[in-house]
């Protein structure tokens, strides 16, 4: 097992490259997912407010027209 991790003495370089790649890919994915979630929540909140306001407003439009 330790032989597997040492990789013929180059373990440090090899695991560092795999590690940094995995880290970067995971961080990019998580950052995207978090941004997506927060943007979706914000959008839904705004749309909910809009929904609650919209009927009143359409009535007004009808009165106006």
């Amino acid at each position: 097992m330790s032989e597997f991790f040492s990789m013929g003495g180059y373990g440090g370089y090899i695991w560092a490259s795999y590690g940094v790649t995995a880290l970067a890919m995971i961080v990019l994915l998580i950052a995207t997912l978090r941004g997506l979630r927060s943007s979706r929540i914000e959008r839904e909140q705004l749309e909910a407010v809009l929904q609650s306001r919209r009927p009143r407003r359409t009535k007004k439009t009808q009165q106006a027209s």
Partner: protein
Amino acid sequence: MHRFAKPSVFLKFTAPILPWLSALTVILIAAGLYFSLIGSPVDYQQGHTVRIMYIHVPAAWMGLFCYVGMAICGAMSLIWKHPLADICARATAPVGATFTALCLITGSLWGEPMWGTWWVWDARLTSMLILLFLYLGYMALVNAFDDPERGSKAGSALALVGAVNVPIVKFSVDWWNTLHQPASIVRMDGPAVDPSMQLPLALMILGFTCYYFVVLILRVRLELNERRIRALHLSGMFEDPETPTSAKEQAYEAGHNAGAKQ
């Protein structure tokens, strides 16, 4: 109609694909990792360090692939004025920049044990470095405007200009390199690719490409959400109730069209 239809079509198409694509990404990368770390032979010249190639080369591939993708998006945005093309290009850039940076880092980690130096001004390394600069310039430009749509459009133009320039840069760097490189330094050519190495390499390239498409879909959704939020804010529905109703109505429709439902 143009603006309304396309984003919703995008969402309708990608929603069922996404879980499958994610699963495929995981499977491909897991299999790729198995074959690159355990199931492949040690190179007779480079020893175990050849294993770095299995992520270095796919990362380089992704760096170029994403830039070509951005340039194609830029061309589509120029020709058809399609908002989704801008959004795709914008969503691609961080992925491409990440992989280009990874290519440089893993190349460094490969170079140190092999040639005893972290960095050589080799033609390929230098070209990748310039590609990273192009990505950074694109991302800086796209994010420098208050109106993200304007930023995306400027970015698309830049991606096209960059794409015309990339071959020229590549040519000039090659030329510069052959002129200046002392002959003693080992060529950057990887080991001749043995069939046993092709499998992990192919798996990783496919895995990374699938990963890109997963992130692309998510980032386009994110971008669409943000546009919708911005449009809703701009519509003035939440700030001043004094705006005439018809204007509000128009703004509401504009907002609705820009974002579309998920």
